[in-house]
């Protein structure tokens, strides 16, 4: 148990949703902590050094490469949406899947707990699967693999992966997505890109949401875009409002061409 954030060892749960049927039951996936009984030699031999030189994220990255290959084989574009909690990702997604229908789409929802986001997407009629990470603070490639298996995504689909709301941890984990989109909102302040540079560094697109609130908040879109480009000179920045629909045409246009991004 981690005293800093309360992380425990309970593994992620994947919940699938039958179309208009009762909600699925999650099932636990136990990470098995090592539990070896170790026989000690009484004559302690001298320690020897074993050179490993292995990247810590190598296994995740291997699984991510496998996800990427499988998605590409089926012509599926996967967009990983990352943001702080409350930036409006789910509102944006619900509107997006409604307005882009009947294009084949699916959504993978990531949250520590509850099926609330998946229920909102399901109400649109779009296929959805919920990953509850339990104590985990990000999605990883193995979780996406399980979610994609559970979803049985149609060839040629556009898959939105809503990562756990967190501007820190998801940045390090490649899921095998086609492209990465960071969503921020004008209520969060224009300083977030420089405070959380890892997140913005790998974004193919930054959506600045809730621009309908600009008259009421102290947020300078130009300054924000300049700060984003200091971290990531090649990324695109779009100002949108998932509530009023402002700017969403540009987001949809970007999605139409994002099969080659990332």
């Amino acid at each position, binding site marked *: 148990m981690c005293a800093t954030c309360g992380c425990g060892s309970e593994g992620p749960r994947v919940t699938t949703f039958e179309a208009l049927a009762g909600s699925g039951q999650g099932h636990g996936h136990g990470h098995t902590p090592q539990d070896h009984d170790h026989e000690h030699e009484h004559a302690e031999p001298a320690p020897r050094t074993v*050179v490993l030189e292995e990247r*810590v994220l190598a296994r995740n990255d291997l699984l991510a490469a496998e996800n990427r290959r499988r998605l590409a084989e089926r012509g599926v574009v996967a967009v990983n949406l990352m943001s702080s909690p409350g930036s409006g990702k789910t509102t944006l997604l619900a509107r997006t899947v409604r307005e882009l229908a009947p294009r084949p789409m699916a959504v993978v929802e990531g949250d520590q707990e509850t099926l609330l986001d998946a229920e909102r997407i399901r109400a649109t009629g779009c296929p959805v699967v919920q990953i509850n990470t339990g104590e985990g603070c990000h999605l990883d490639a193995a979780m996406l693999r399980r979610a994609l298996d559970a979803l049985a995504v149609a060839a040629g689909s556009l898959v939105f992966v809503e990562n756990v709301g967190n501007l820190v941890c998801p940045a390090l984990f490649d899921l095998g997505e086609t492209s990465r989109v960071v969503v921020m909102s004008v209520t969060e302040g224009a300083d977030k890109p420089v405070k959380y540079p890892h997140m913005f560094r790998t974004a193919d697109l930054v959506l600045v949401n809730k621009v309908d609130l600009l008259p009421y908040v102290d947020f300078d879109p130009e300054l924000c875009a300049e700060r984003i480009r200091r971290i990531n*000179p090649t990324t695109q920045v779009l100002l949108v409002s998932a509530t009023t629909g402002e700017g969403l045409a540009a987001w949809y246009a970007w999605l139409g061409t994002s099969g080659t991004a990332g």
Partner: protein
Amino acid sequence: MHELAITQGIVEMIVERTDSARVTAVYLRIGKVSGVVPEAVRFCFDLVAAGSPVEGARLEIDEPPGRARCRSCGCAFAVEGLVVLCPCGSADVEVVGGDELLVRAVEVV
């Protein structure tokens, strides 16, 4: 707090690569701009290693500094974080070092 998952990955990898031999020391490389906080890995390490063959191992972490190269003028320079400007004024800068996250070696008995 992705350091917990990172540390779990480190311990699992070591146990697998060493066939569950008893590990007395672990040598990590965590670059200064890797996005991982060495103190947090230290904090998690004992908790994660408990009950595994890595329990009680000494943890040594070297932290290479960040290095960057400017795509505009080509000059290389040291960086403290990811918010960097080249002395020439360009923000088009590529991190070329200090982003490593490696298990370098272990000592086993």
